[in-house]
């Protein structure tokens, strides 16, 4: 097990190095962009000297490696990601404000996807080829093919007519509540359950729009894994040896089937974060994905670098968690890496 941890840490370190290289690539890309981002951000009326001064402040008048090294030093020593030309704040502050909100949204989605996806997939596999299975397969196939924004729009139409859930925006969280930046969690920490309820209510639609596609996909994968393993010798053996049906399905069949499901689950959760921006736009959710979109559309150099960096780290962490989970489920991997 210790060796597995070492292997995963190695992988994480590798990713950090990759991300540093990537940040350099992004810096060089930004130099290639036609038009001067500094000039654009300050408006056409700004005098040349002010722009030149700003450029020099941001190290845009220096050689690329120097600019990158300066940025890297800032990141490592004081968590300084440079100044955003779009919000005119330090990017680190922006991240601190927006990222927790997106993470919270994705957290709820991740739980929903895992529970519902696996449950639906299991039901589908147990009742293989029944009408229920066919119905589930049909709906989940449709779900996989439907873009998140279409699901969002569909839910919007429904909630306009039904009027149960708020169709966009979030309740204002008082400034003195803010601790983690996650809206729901902050309410819980303060003990304001009424506001937490409101936050949850506002999250229902964004969460559903973001999750339904992944739920459908997970259900398909999990059903497939279970159906494949039903034919395995060890299931037949356990069956003849006299393991009860409940245990056979929920344990002997479920555990090995969960390995491929978990791998896909990791990919889905990681891609949720990348896909969230559409949902955040539709439902006016003040999250990191929407911020990223603005940064990208405004060609904000330090913003783009930071955004790619943060996404890369989230990707890597999710992957590492999946690796740990798979090693936990599959003794073959645990034992082989430790030999």
């Amino acid at each position, binding site marked *: 097990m210790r060796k597995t941890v070492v292997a995963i840490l190695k992988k994480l370190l590798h990713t950090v190095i990759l991300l540093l290289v990537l940040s350099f690539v992004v810096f060089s890309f930004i130099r290639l962009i036609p038009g001067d981002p500094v000039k654009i951000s300050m408006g056409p009326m700004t005098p040349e000297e002010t722009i030149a001064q700003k450029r020099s402040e941001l190290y845009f008048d220096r050689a690329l490696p120097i600019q990158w090294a300066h940025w890297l030093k800032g990141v490592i020593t004081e968590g300084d990601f440079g100044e955003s030309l779009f919000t005119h704040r330090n990017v680190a502050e922006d991240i601190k404000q927006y990222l927790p909100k997106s993470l919270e949204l994705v957290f709820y989605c991740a739980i929903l996807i895992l529970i519902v996806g696996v449950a639906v997939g299991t039901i589908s596999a147990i009742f293989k080829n029944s009408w229920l299975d066919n119905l589930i397969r049909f709906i989940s196939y449709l779900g996989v093919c439907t873009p998140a924004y279409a699901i969002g729009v569909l839910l919007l139409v429904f909630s306009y007519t039904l009027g149960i859930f708020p169709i966009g925006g979030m309740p204002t969280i008082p400034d003195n509540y803010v601790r983690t930046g996650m809206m729901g969690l902050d309410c819980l920490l303060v003990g304001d359950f009424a506001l937490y309820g409101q936050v949850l209510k506002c999250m229902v639609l964004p969460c559903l729009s973001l999750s339904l596609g992944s739920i459908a996909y997970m259900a398909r994968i999990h059903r497939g894994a279970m159906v494949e393993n039903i034919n395995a010798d060890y299931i037949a053996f356990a069956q003849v040896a006299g393991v009860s049906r409940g245990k056979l399905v929920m344990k002997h069949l479920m555990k090995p089937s969960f*390995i491929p499901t978990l791998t896909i689950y990791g990919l889905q959760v990681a891609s949720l974060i990348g896909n969230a921006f559409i949902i955040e736009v539709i439902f006016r959710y003040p999250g990191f994905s929407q911020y990223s979109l603005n940064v990208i559309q405004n060609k904000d150099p330090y913003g783009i670098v930071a955004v790619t960096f943060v996404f890369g780290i989230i990707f890597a962490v999710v992957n590492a968690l999946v690796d740990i989970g798979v090693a936990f489920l599959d003794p073959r991997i645990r034992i082989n890496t430790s030999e």
Partner: protein
Amino acid sequence: MEKKNLALNIENLSVKYKIYEGILEVIPGLSMHVEQAERVGLIGETGCGKTTVLKSAAAVLQSPPAIVHKDAIEVCGVSVDGKKGLRSVRRNVSMIFQDPSSSLNPTLKISTQMTDILKSQFPGKRKAEYGQMMLDALDSVSMPAPERVLGSYPVQLSGGMRQRVCIAMALMKDTNLMLADEPTTALDVTIEEQILDLLDKLVREKKKSLILVSHALGAIRKITDRVYVMYAGNVVEVGKTKEVFEHPHHPYTIGLMAATPKLTGSGIADGIAGDIPSYINPPKGCRFASRCPRCTQECLEAPPILADMEDGRQVACHHAGEEAAV
């Protein structure tokens, strides 16, 4: 023959698969029986349907894709059909599979897999009692270091140890009928004999009926009382093991015996030329005809029926009793 006394009775079993090229008639129509405390051997070359027969008997053949028809499969007098039948099968049949590395769940500890069997077979005992039962079970298969084995995953055990675990698990419930599907094919030759001896000993001790499928003809000869010889899904010869081995009647059995190298024999054994015929649109006559030295027009036209011979043997050959000609 009083059916109630039979450990297993299969009547006219047929198994087909539907594929693109047509219908695979894996088992066209097969009957066999095993008496109480009888040890029966099942031999024949790879792909002749032995595993399919055993899986049908243990009610674990996946259907679909398999299309199964039968007049009867009865375990200890109870048909395998329906809920009651399945329960009866599960209570009365144990089975050991070919490959011990795929018949143990790779993600669960041995102790977990064994406990789950015990819990459903002997419910309501304390944890310590289950622990003792597992140790006893492993002890009975002469497993070295049973405590360590219980805490291991299958991947941590050698092939021989895995098969011992499988046998221990198969013996944990008190069944009348034990099906062993080539239990040593995936193992080293050195371990093969140990495992077969162990199986033989345990089955004799507990007075179980046994069907042993094996390519180790020596072991079949040593362990079993009666033997079924299968060719391309059909039983071609049945009889007392000793007699079949000493005086095979069916040309396929004769070839099979000749293909086994003997310690006393000279040189390399003869094989049987040719392959098993395609199961898709199989020949309408005898399935062995294309490889048979005795083949005549009759053999190409009609399939032979398993018929009693004077010496109590049953042989499916139009030319049974013509050994002298070979």
